[in-house]
């Protein structure tokens, strides 16, 4: 069951939001996610985001692309219809397979990694995002805390304010909101 009610600390400074996230973590509050106009380095660790395994996936996609190209070329020019071009038989001439294998590796890695990223992040064309503030993609930094799983709301609010939040908002989204965890 996805949480739908959030306490949102609104910041205008990446330094302050990182500090606030650390303070929250130290006092045992689990931050749901942060929403920032650019990637604030260090904030991901403070809110406890696990490192992504997309790198491993990309490597496997690359291997797939390489094998596909190797299979395709040897099938076409070796097993299905062997050719003899200029007295040079075209049978399993591995060195000439290198460029196409390489390009196929790159193409598969790039496309499949991007598609995996989109699917994992629930990014599709036409999705209407649920925003805490219209300026969270411009100059505001939002720290969102799931309010159902925490009881001490006033303590959290106090802590956010103390750490320099411009304001603290309570926000409720519909059941099918797009805030992923």
């Amino acid at each position, binding site marked *: 069951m996805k949480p739908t009610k959030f306490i949102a600390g609104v910041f205008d400074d990446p330094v302050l939001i990182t500090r606030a996230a650390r303070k929250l973590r130290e006092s045992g509050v689990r931050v749901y996610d942060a929403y920032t106009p650019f990637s604030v380095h260090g904030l991901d660790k403070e809110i406890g985001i696990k490192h992504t395994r997309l790198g491993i996936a990309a490597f496997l996609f690359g291997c797939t692309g390489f094998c596909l190209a190797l299979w395709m070329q040897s099938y076409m020019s070796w097993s299905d219809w062997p050719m003899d071009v200029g007295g040079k038989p*075209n049978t399993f001439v591995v060195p000439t397979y290198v460029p196409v294998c*390489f390009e196929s590796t790159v193409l598969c890695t790039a496309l499949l990694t991007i598609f995996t990223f989109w699917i994992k992040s629930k990014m599709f064309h036409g999705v209407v995002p649920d925003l805490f503030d219209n300026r969270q993609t411009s100059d505001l930094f939002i720290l969102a805390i799931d309010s159902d799983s925490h009881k001490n709301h006033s303590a959290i609010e106090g802590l956010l304010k103390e750490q320099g939040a411009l304001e603290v908002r309570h926000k409720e989204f519909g059941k099918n909101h797009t805030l992923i965890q």
Partner: protein
Amino acid sequence: MFEAPIRERWITGDKSYGQISDDICRPIENPPTKAWWGGFTLSFIFFCALVFGLTYSVWNGLGTWGINKTVGWAWDITNFVFWIGIGHAGTLISAILLLFRQKWRMSINRSAEAMTIFAVMCAGVFPIFHMGRVWNGFWCLPLPNNFGSIWVNFSSPLLWDVFAISTYFTVSLFFWYMGLIPDIATVRDRAKTKMTKFFYNLLSMGWNGSMRTWMRYEIVCLILAGISTPLVLSVHTIVSFDFATSIVPGWHTTIFPPYFVAGAIFSGFGMVLTLLVIARKVMKYEDYITINHLDAMCKVVMLTGTIVGCAYITEFFIAWYSGVEYEQYAFINRATGPYWWAYWTMMSCNLLAPQVFWFKKLRRHPNFIFFMSIIVNIGMWFERFVIIVTSLHRDYLTSSWIMYYPTWVEVCIFLGTFGLFFTCYFVFCKLMPTISIAETKAIMPLDQLPIAKKRMAAEAAHAH
């Protein structure tokens, strides 16, 4: 985070985060200026010339081109290599400089990547229409025999080119789009009308700036940069294989791959400078694309120009040293034969002219840089012309020696590709942020921002 105090700032003018969004979104949110309409109309006229030139040559056949039995590759392949080369700077800036963590790439990468995509589109026109019967163009794809041809020949560098360039185009397009997503979201959230909101919402894929997504996003960009780096090197390497694997004197050299790659980056930076020197002025982006950016780019131009120059001299030396008389003749003919003017244009524009950038004053003078960038573009066009035409026009058989002159149709198509390129560029400038908003914000020094004053005051009060 450590921030070196000595380093000059890449973004000047004490911008706040909000102001960066305002500045970069300004051309998108306001109606196009007169300069934009003028430029767009002119480019579109040239684009129509492209459509006309191509239709004319398909209708009447390649006899309308100046190519002949001896010089089968000429103007068209020159332009193909010229445009492909231009594209390379974009990938260098977006991928290689990302891996080297060069912060100055942040405000120029977007437009350079756009340039890559449009340049590859222009490049694609030439080999496709050089096939003559374009409707059979799909024969270069690996399709089963019953489609009309036998399987493609995987030992042919021309086929490798098909794979390399289509991969390069696809990966560059996706890399560019990935970079655009967060910025499209910024434009979406600032949009005032329903129409623009819908358009940018569709393209932004529901981006909300979640930290989780950001982290994955950065990894994906790093992976893309990691694979684009060998990709961009491979593309021009394979283009050079088109020549190097043949037995034509002047083409059959092992130096070609690195020499072509350096030349590609050189010409690409020439084009980036041509565009950005104008764009920063017209779009009032002097705070984002500063003199320091131009300076850095000029250094790259000088370095790659010198590498290319070294390659010219090496080629000449090796031709003599090899003792192969055909090779020797090909080079003597380049420098002193009927196309001597092309050769010396190339030499002076590519090897000698960029040496002026040893002087710091000249690297920081926008008008002079613009002039030099045009020189570089001309020089690199002539490099390809020299390599292709002067090597072919006097082949092994003296009786088939001939001259090559372009016809008006070829000139029309070439000028037309500039139309295609600039039409796309003008549309891009109007619809998309031409500077990466998110990345620019990320390189702002944290303790020099306007908001930092407030933070520091609070900290000082707290300490007491």
